[in-house]
């Protein structure tokens, strides 16, 4: 299963980067979201896959034992998901603001304002 997940991680990266290389700002943002999904999946994958044993201590136990999912990547990804929401929100607003000011979605048009 790891092979397939690694494959989809690679696809997420490639698609995210491809979209970020486009001239449209909306595509840039969608690409960014895909890329952060890909990064989260990569961390998750590298933390090893464990099925059906969340890192929660059972009712009668005092600590985790045997096979359990690694809690550290999960804590990292949880943080990353929430932060990336803040980032996406901020980026979208920037996009909107730029759209209001320049009336264009084309990133290249932003260059010309330097000359004015």
């Amino acid at each position, binding site marked *: 299963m790891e092979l397939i997940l690694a494959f989809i991680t690679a696809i997420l990266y490639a698609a995210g980067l491809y979209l970020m290389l486009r001239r449209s700002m909306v595509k840039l943002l969608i690409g960014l979201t895909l890329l952060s999904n890909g990064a989260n999946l990569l961390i998750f994958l590298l933390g090893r896959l464990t099925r059906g044993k*969340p890192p*929660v201590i059972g009712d009668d136990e005092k600590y985790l034992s045997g096979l359990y999912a690694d809690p550290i990547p999960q804590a990292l990804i*949880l943080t990353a998901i*929430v932060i990336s*929401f*803040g980032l996406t*929100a901020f980026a*979208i*607003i920037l996009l*909107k603001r730029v759209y209001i000011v320049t009336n264009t979605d084309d990133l290249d048009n932003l260059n010309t304002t330097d000359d004015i």
Partner: protein
Amino acid sequence: MKSIILKRATVYLLPLLLLFSVFILLRGHYEPGGGFVGGLIASIAFVLHAFANGLKNTQKFLVYHPGILIPSGLAISLLSGFISMFKGEAYMKGAWLAKPVPVIGSVGTPLFFDIGVYFVVIGVTLTILFTISETTTQ
């Protein structure tokens, strides 16, 4: 998106979802859940309400601007860390009540910290979304 069904439904959904979010928040220390998820669920509840009834009504319903939750939440989280210092221990070292409270379990400073996170997340999400929809509907 002014659907009658959704409008009626949110009347019951909002309190239910809010209750659920609090439940998720409080059980976070023992079962999956916690401040982040709880806060997000609560925000979704309000967003749903805003979709059904219009932003104006939601804001009227909330009375205060959701932004007020951000500093409050930050303050709760920050101050919860000081409690253990009264016991002469390091900042943010957990301190617990001697006896567990029914339903919630043992109550300690990490719980207050999580409640702070809960408020900040609600405040941030709603501030962002409300600001955006305010300016787009203009």
